[in-house]
């Protein structure tokens, strides 16, 4: 079970992404962070914290549950319905630049669902995608704007992002399909 990112590396990576956000958007005006549940949410909050340290400005942060927008529910092969959790976006996304945050970018289907979900809340000026890990194997024409780490993987491998807030520790590991 090789560890590909440890706590220090995750911390430095998110700091670097925060700087890229400020550079690319020339500040943080009109920006808002939206984390995709579950692990995109703490990542979004950490980036918001770093952005405040850099610019002294608060960036509104919300969380998005995409379960009701997935393209694989209702298909009998998938199993019982996944648990639906609450979306919590306490600000208007109209005319803002939304930074959509997820832990792993893989097929792109989660991002597709997140884009559909987000657009039901209004009409953002732009949506940019932040991922901690891009593991390749896209099935849709989707590309991240900020990537923590490009990680070439085989389809049968599993990329696990563990975060302090949810899992009690910070690390990214790759597991091989049939057990390590």
């Amino acid at each position: 079970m090789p560890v590909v990112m440890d706590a220090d590396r995750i911390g430095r990576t998110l700091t670097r992404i925060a700087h890229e956000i400020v550079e690319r958007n020339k500040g943080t005006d009109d920006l808002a962070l939206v984390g995709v549940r579950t692990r995109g949410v703490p990542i979004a909050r950490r980036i918001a914290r770093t952005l405040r340290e850099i610019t002294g400005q608060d960036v509104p942060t919300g969380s998005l549950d995409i379960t009701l927008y997935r393209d694989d529910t209702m298909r009998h092969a998938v199993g019982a319905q996944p648990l639906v959790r609450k979306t919590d976006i306490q600000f208007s996304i109209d005319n803002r630049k939304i930074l959509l945050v997820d832990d792993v970018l893989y097929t792109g289907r989660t991002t597709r669902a997140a884009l559909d979900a987000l657009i039901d809340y209004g009409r953002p000026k732009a949506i940019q995608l932040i991922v901690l890990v891009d593991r390749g194997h896209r099935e849709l024409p989707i590309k991240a704007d900020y990537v923590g780490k490009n990680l070439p993987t085989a389809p049968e491998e599993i990329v696990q992002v563990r975060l302090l807030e949810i899992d009690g520790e910070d690390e990214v590991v790759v597991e091989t399909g049939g057990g390590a």
Partner: protein
Amino acid sequence: MSTTSQELDQKQAVTALRRKDLLGIAELSPQEIELVLDTAEAMKEVGTRPIKKVPALRGKTVVNLFYEPSTRTRTSFEIAEKRLSADTLNIAIGTSSVVKGETLADTALNLEAMSPDMIVLRHASSGACHFLSRVCRSAIINAGDGMHEHPTQALLDAFTIRERKKRLAGLKIAIVGDLLHSRVLRSNIHLLTKLGADVWVCGPPTLIPADIRRFGVTATSVVEEAVRDADVIMLLRIQLERMEGAYFPSLREYFRVFGMTEERMLMARPDVMIMHPGPMNRGVEIASEVADGPYSVILDQVANGVAVRMAVLYLLAGGVEHEEAA
């Protein structure tokens, strides 16, 4: 009830609504009930968005088959179905072939030949939904069957109580009214006792079913006893249409002895919730000033009904015949 996402992850691992139909509360486990209520919280948020619609049931067809008059329940199911993007059709019995003598099974099988995914059934006969679930491949959702059960009403009642009180366990809940004919009562007794509430039921002796204590509730005909220190008072409608005999002298007499007046309400806890599944008979089971007063959550119940029905529709749409989700 503050649940972290970690707890929710664990909950997800142990629970899912693995059944084809929702026929009653009796067969649900406390975990399944909590799952519906938790899911309904997320569904309630959908109703607050500028675009109150999600694609979860896109391509699914839901038939609302109502053999009894209904405004609230039918409308509530229809809105819930539409918010989940299902295609819906309503069959009102007065204008259908039922008036030409078609049986329930024949009507259902003919509908089923057009491949709906779910049938929401309201019927005057107890057990009609169980019968249909054996005949039909579609998921059956009980929207009230005779004097048996009305599961989505009990779920929305529980959701409304939990939203205010943050729990159900240990609450004193007084249910006052026509106990004999009420399917809402039966579903509520099952649900509230499963989740640990202290349930008191009250009505004229002629309207208390003989074996009611078997269900773990306290029965009384003294309304003051039932409402004293209650956290929740739930009124039930006097169902004149189901009464074949004289169960009490007059409606005025009923109101005098059992009607929920402000005076009686003040015997309950200061933060009491007043509930009624509707339709209300003002001046019979409930005084207007109580129904419209600050303790009344009757319209919250109606609002929450949509979220709870969305949760039930969504959870049942997953079906049963498959293994654990990845």
